[in-house]
C-alpha cells in the first residue's frame, strides 16, 4: 500500500513522505478540472459513502465531487434523515454499511475518536472528515497544498493560526501537518481558547496578533462559533473582532505577499472583514478548489490497495 493504513484518520500518525505523496498526487488531479470531461475512470464501480453526523455542505460536496470525478458511486447519509436518529449505534451503522459493500466511508462526527471506533469495526476505508476537536486531516492537507502551490514550499514558511484553537480540529491537523513538513507555526487567540500545553506540539503561542503579524507568510483565520460566547469563554464578539479579527488595517501590517486563509464558512465581519476576504491576498476560493483535488488524491491512494 502506498499509504501505510487503509484509513485516513489523522495527520499525527503519518510521516512527511506520506503527506508529500498525497500533495504530489493532488497536483495532476487538479488538472482534470480544467478539461471539459471532468472525470477519470479510476474508481469506477467503487461505492463512496458520506456519513455526516454534523451538518456540512462544503466538506460534503467537496468529497462528493472528488468521488464523482473519479467515477465512483456516491451516497450521502446525513444524521437527521437516517436510522441513526432512532439511536442506531456507530458500530451498527458501520456493520450496515459493510453489509452494503461500501468501499469508502467518509465520516464527520461531533466526537473525537468516532472515526477510529468505526475503522476498528469495518473493512472499508474510513476517511475522517472531522471528529470533534481532534482532527480534520483533509482540511490540513488542502491547506498545505495551497501554501505549497502559492509559495513554492512549506519548509520555513511562517504560519499564524488565529482563533478558537481549543475547539478547532482544523488547527490541530494543520499544526501536525505543517510542523512535520518544516513550517514554523504560531497560534494566537484569547487565553481561554488556547488549549493546555499546546506548545508541546511545536508551536509558539501569542495573544496579540499585531506583535507578530509582520513576520508571517500565512495568516490562517479560524471561524469563531457563537456558542462559545454563550459558554462565556470570551466577553463579546465585538471584543473578539477588535483583538483577533483581520481587517484591512491589520492586513496592512502584514507582508505584501501574505496569504490569507480560512477553512470556511466565514463569519464576514467577525473574524474576517469582507474586504480582506475578497482581497488579492485571500486564497480562500483556491482552498475550495484544492480541496477537491486533495480529496481525489486521498481516495485514489487509499483505493489502490484494493
Amino acid at each position, binding site marked *: 500500500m502506498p499509504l501505510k493504513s487503509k484509513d485516513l484518520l489523522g495527520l499525527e500518525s503519518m510521516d512527511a513522505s506520506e503527506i508529500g505523496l498525497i500533495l504530489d498526487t493532488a497536483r495532476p488531479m487538479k488538472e482534470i478540472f480544467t478539461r471539459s470531461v471532468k472525470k477519470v475512470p479510476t474508481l469506477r464501480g467503487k461505492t463512496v459513502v458520506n456519513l455526516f453526523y454534523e451538518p456540512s455542505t462544503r466538506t460534503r460536496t467537496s468529497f462528493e465531487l472528488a468521488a464523482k470525478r473519479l467515477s465512483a458511486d456516491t451516497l450521502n447519509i446525513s444524521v437527521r434523515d437516517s436510522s441513526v436518529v432512532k439511536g442506531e449505534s456507530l458500530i451498527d451503522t458501520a456493520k450496515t454499511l459493510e453489509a452494503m459493500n461500501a468501499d469508502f466511508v467518509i465520516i464527520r462526527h461531533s466526537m473525537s*475518536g468516532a472515526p477510529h471506533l468505526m475503522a476498528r469495526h469495518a473493512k472499508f476505508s474510513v476517511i475522517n472528515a472531522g471528529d470533534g476537536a481532534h482532527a480534520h486531516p483533509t482540511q490540513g492537507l488542502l491547506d498545505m497544498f495551497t501554501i505549497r502551490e502559492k509559495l513554492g514550499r512549506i519548509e520555513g514558511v511562517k504560519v499564524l493560526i488565529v482563533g478558537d484553537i481549543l475547539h478547532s480540529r482544523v488547527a490541530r491537523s494543520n499544526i501536525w501537518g505543517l510542523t512535520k513538513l518544516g513550517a514554523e507555526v504560531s497560534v494566537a487567540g484569547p487565553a481561554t481558547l488556547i488549549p493546555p500545553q499546546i506548545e508541546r506540539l511545536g508551536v509558539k503561542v501569542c495573544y496579540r496578533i499585531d506583535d507578530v503579524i509582520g513576520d508571517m507568510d500565512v495568516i490562517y483565520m479560524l471561524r469563531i462559533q457563537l456558542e462559545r460566547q454563550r459558554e462565556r469563554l470570551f466577553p463579546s464578539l465585538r471584543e473578539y473582532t477588535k483583538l483577533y479579527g483581520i481587517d484591512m488595517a491589520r492586513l496592512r501590517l502584514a507582508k505584501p505577499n501574505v496569504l490569507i486563509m480560512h477553512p470556511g464558512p466565514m463569519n464576514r465581519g467577525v473574524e474576517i472583514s469582507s474586504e480582506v476576504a475578497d482581497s488579492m491576498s485571500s486564497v480562500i476560493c483556491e482552498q475550495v478548489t484544492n480541496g477537491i483535488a486533495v480529496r481525489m488524491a486521498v481516495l485514489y491512494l487509499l483505493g489502490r490497495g484494493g
Partner: protein
Amino acid sequence: MKLLIKGGRVIDPANKVDRVSDILVESGRIKKVSSNIKAGTSKVKTIDASGKVVTPGLIDMHVHLREPGMEDEETIASGTRAAARGGVTSVVCMANTNPVIDNQAQVDFILLKAKDEGVVNVFLVGGVTKGLRGEELSEIGELKGAGVVAISDDGNPIMNTQIMRQALEYAKMFELPVISHCEDLNLSRGGAMNEGYMSTVLGLKGIPKEAEEIMVARDLRLARMTGGLLHIAHVSTAGSVDLIRGAKRNGIKVTCETAPHYFTLTEEAVSSFDTNTKMCPPLRTRDDVQAIREGLADGTIDCISSDHAPHLDVEKDQEYALAPFGIIGLETILPLIVTELVDKNVLVLSEAIAKMSVNPARILGLNRGTLSQGSVADITIIDLDLAKTIDDKFASKSKNSPFIGRRLNGFAVATIVEGEVVTQG
C-alpha cells in the same frame, strides 16, 4: 473440618510476621500459626504452600457490585466469584446501585443475598445522602444499625460543603468513616480524560487535576474542623498526595486509598481512544504516577483498592466522550501490586499486603486482615512467580479492563474464606 497450610512464607503485617510457617485452621478460625504443625488424626485437608506466600485474606475496600439494578454488568454472585479468583476474601461494596443503598431495607436485602450467593465476605457502604443526591443526609444511624461499615456517595461527590460538614460530624457519632469521592463537578463537567497535553492532542474535553485537589483540600479542612473520620477515595494526583501528607503531618484524622491504574497507567494510554482507559478520576501524567508510588511508600496512602466498576461491551463500545467511566479490577489488583510495586521495589511485600489487609480492616473496623490466632480464617495464597498474560476470560460478567494483553505475575493460587477453600489453582 481442618485445613493445614504447609510450608508457605507467611506474611501477616498486623503481627509483624514474615517467615516460613504452617497454619492450622479449624472450624473457620485460625487455630495455630507455627512451624511444623502436626495435624492430628481427624480429617485434614492439606495445602502445600511451599514456595508460595500466605497472607491474610485480601480486603478490597472499593468495589461496585451492581446488584440491585444493573445485574447485566455484575451480580453479587459473579462479583464475589471475581473477587475470589483475584485472591480477595472481602469486598466492600459501594452504595450507588439502583436503587441506592440508603436505607435499612436495602442493606438487609444485599446482606441476605450475599449470604446466599456470595462466595466471599461482602461488607456494605451506605449512602451519605438520600438517593446520593447530595441534598439530605440519609438515616445514618439506621444504616449503622443495619451493618454498614462506612458511608459514601461514591460515584458522586458531595458538592454542598455544608452537607459534607454535617456528614462528618454526624457519622463521627457512629464511628463511621465518610469515604469521599473528591471531584468538583463544575471543573470536571463534560470532561472525558485528564486535562493536559493528551487532551489537547486528542481534542477531548479534559478534567483538570484541580477538580480533585480542590475538593481534597476542602475535605481536609472539614476533617480538621469536625474531627470526623475522613477517607479519601481513589487518589490520583501528586497534588492530592501532597495535601494528604501535609494534613497527616499536622495531625488531621484522614486516611486514603488509591487504585492500581493510578500507579501503572498514564494519560498516554488514551491515545488509541480505547474506552477501557476511561475512568473517574482519569489517568494522569507520569509525575502523578511517580507521586502515587511515593505516597504508597511513605505511608501517606493507606490502602489499595480496585474501584471495580463493571460495564458491558455495548456500553463501552461507543464514542469516547459517551462511554461510561470505569474499569473492572478485582482480578488484576493483586498481580498489579506485585508486578508494579513489589517487583519494582516501590514497596516490600509485607508493606504491600498491609495496604489490602490490616490497613483497610483498621479503617473500617473489620475484624479481618490478620492471621492472629482465633481470628476468622480468611487466607490468600499467592504465587509470586506465576506469570500470565491477562486475557478477556474473567470471572466477572464484564470485560472492561485496560490490562488485557498485559503480562503480570503474582497471582492468587488459593482463596480461603472462613476456613473454606473457595478457589484453588
